[in-house]
């Protein structure tokens, strides 16, 4: 159960960071809403669905992410 608690804390920290970006104008309201939507259902998405959601959110920038380097 520790993973539930940890993952919820991580999500909230991430949301808090996004809130700050939103306040400073570095993140659009629509994008923030999308982030919240993804976080909410993240456990229900397949890997492919998640990737498509992130692609839409990042306007395709995720394709340029060096996944192989991870």
């Amino acid at each position, binding site marked *: 159960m520790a993973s539930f608690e940890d993952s919820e804390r991580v999500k*909230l920290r991430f949301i*808090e960071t996004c809130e700050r970006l939103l306040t400073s104008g570095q993140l659009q309201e629509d994008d923030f809403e999308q982030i919240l939507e993804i976080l909410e259902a993240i456990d229900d998405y397949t890997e492919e669905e998640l990737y498509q959601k992130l692609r839409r959110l990042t306007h395709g920038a995720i394709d340029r992410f060096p996944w192989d380097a991870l």
Partner: protein
Amino acid sequence: MNSITNLVPRDSGAEQRILGILIKYPEKVDQVIDRLRPEHFYDSVHRHVYSTIVDLYNAGGRISYTQIYNRLRRSSTIESPAQMLIGLTESFAAVSELEPSIAALRNKEASRRLLRAVEEIRSLAVDEGDQDLSSIQAKAQELIFAATQNTLQGEDETKSLLDVLNKCYINLVERRQGISDAYGLSVRFPSIDAMTTGLKRKDLIILAARPSMGKTALAMNMVVNVAKRHIPVLVMSLEMDDEQIGDRIVLSELFRYKEEGAFEITSSEYQTRLSDEQFSKAQRVFNELYRLPIQIIDKRGLSVAEMRAKARKVKTASPNLGLIVIDYLQLIKPTVQGQRSWSLLVGEMVRELRDLAGELDVPIVLLSQLNRGVESRENKRPMMSDLRDSGNIEEFADAVVFLYRDDYYHPEEAVQNGTEGQVEIIFAKQRKGPTGTVRLRFVKEYTRFIDEFNNGEVR
């Protein structure tokens, strides 16, 4: 008063633990929802989060921090919902901590309620000190009662059939062994008892009639009959004073000497001067009556709230209080007149008295006048529509009983037919029994009813 406001009973840790557990184990909401209301949470943010959890749960949605965050963000009631929720994640607790935390919150909330009542009573006494003292005392009792009564509300109100049947079985055995009355409270008029199987606890019984039909007399006869079995009775008389009631009780008992010729004590003799022998007999009656557990409140213009406060007091002093008689409905003072119609106010008072019967677990017999509509009909037997200002009296009452004396309207015929003094007790409504009519004889000069017919027409 600062010492009170600075020390508001609260348990922030317990509030956080409950919220943490509910978010982590949403299925536990079922266990909590009927026992904790938002106001059980002292911290306004916690209260808001709890309401959000309940809303999400009721909407069938899943409960997560993100969902809660979304809701809180949209409502804009909390400055930084994420930060607040992060704080809450520090309170992740084991499920086993749920029950003790609920108990802690309920205790703290009950204490806060008590403190609020104290504050209100204080301002009542200080700011409204020039008001009638009994009215302030009644309000104070109301406040204290409300502050203490709800403590148990929300406990498991579901009863298994096994528990219910157990109680029914015990009652059955007690009735069989003669420990308790047959089902309800017997008023020792066999015809009436046969119709009602006894007055039921929590029931409101309306006893209505036109003036001079004998409704107060019948009610007082019932009171004495009940009290003779050592069952405490409370009489609230808004019309007659204590001495009038006392005299009526004595007089109805003096009826026993009616057949004793020279020793008979008539109403006029009782009210003037008795012979030595008569006085000795009257003394005997007084000695018998002294012991009866009858409490009388004779105050005009009582409101339902005041009656409730007084009845609660009597019930506390006599937990086995068996019957309350109120004489009569139309003399009860409405609490707030406002723009509402008299009929609505009367309906409201009747509903409150029915609730009081339920709360005190005792039958209440409420006497009522009938409107003049009866007089304009050829058949003057009362009907439901004759309940003056009836509103929804009929709806709220568990039983409606009318008295009708034919000899009042047709005295000569009654003499010819031998029905003089015959009173029809018309059971127009009984939630737990049949409707129909039974007959008693009313000996007016003794304000005494006799059950000599005992041939109820039950349908």
